């Protein structure tokens, strides 16, 4: 299991999520796999998606987003594409509302309140 302090998280919400998983002994990997979604005519990857976490015991990929619902279209579309292209892959999206709910439930600072809402730096188009 990777160590939190050795992982280069792209957003504070991801680090909080990793801490929560560690607390309950859930194994996780951070961005372990990139799924090509679309290809150019020359065969190069045109569009890809790297879910934030993989939980091996659950065989589940988890993507976090702190974007407002209005800005979630791109991420939702990528998850739909991923599910269509890789039907055996389980992926769950935790959106800003989910992350806020987790912060209330588990009493940690709301990572969606900080100035990181412009977008996810690792989004690939």
């Amino acid at each position: 299991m990777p160590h939190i302090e050795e992982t280069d998280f792209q957003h504070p919400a991801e680090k909080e999520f990793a801490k929560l998983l560690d607390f309950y002994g859930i194994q996780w990997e951070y961005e372990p796999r990139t799924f090509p979604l679309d290809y150019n005519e020359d065969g190069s990857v045109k569009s890809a998606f790297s879910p934030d976490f993989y939980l091996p015991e659950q065989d589940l990929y988890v993507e976090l987003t702190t974007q407002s619902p209005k800005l979630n279209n791109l991420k939702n579309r990528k998850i739909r594409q991923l599910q269509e292209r890789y039907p055996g892959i389980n992926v769950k999206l935790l959106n800003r509302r989910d992350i806020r709910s987790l912060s209330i439930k588990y009493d940690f600072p709301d990572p969606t309140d900080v100035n990181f809402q412009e977008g996810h730096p690792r989004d690939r188009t």
Partner: protein
Amino acid sequence: MSTSRKDIPETAPEAYRQAIARVIIDEATLQARISEMGEAIARDYEGKNPVFVGVLKGVLFFLADLLQATSIPLAVDFMSISSYSPSSREQGYVRITKDLDICIEGRHVVFVEDIIDTGLTLGYLLKLLRTRNPASLEVAVLFDKPSRRLIDIHPRYLGFHLPDLFVVGYGLDYREQFRNLPFVGVLRPDFLKLS
């Protein structure tokens, strides 16, 4: 099932009444469903003398009512674990703060939980209890919020699916308040922001 703010019982503390937007499961509906669950468990576990295990504190209300609705011989025990609070998360991992007094090896165990949300807590505890070799291990849960589920758990006995709202009452708390309401209500969004 009522859905209006005017349905909030007058017996509820005024401070709680002010914080709740509406009731989504009233007391009568809760109790009727719990009775059905108890009857189903009694049928399934007749002659098996099961051990009911609850995790403090939220399950207290549901467990008490479920036990009374389950009219067979049974045993009951409690566990308590450290929650993901600012103090306990400094230690980095969950700790058992009160373990079972009853040995469950070879026993039929009904794990009783008030709510499943992410499944992180329940998943951890079920994994732990399986290492103790019970004859069987099933889950009875009153409320299920499947939208944020991370751990794949399928309760054998389920009371209600809950909408993706912050709800309190009948054991469910917000910062340790509201547990003692006999119904389930939705907190007002402005209360969550202000508190």
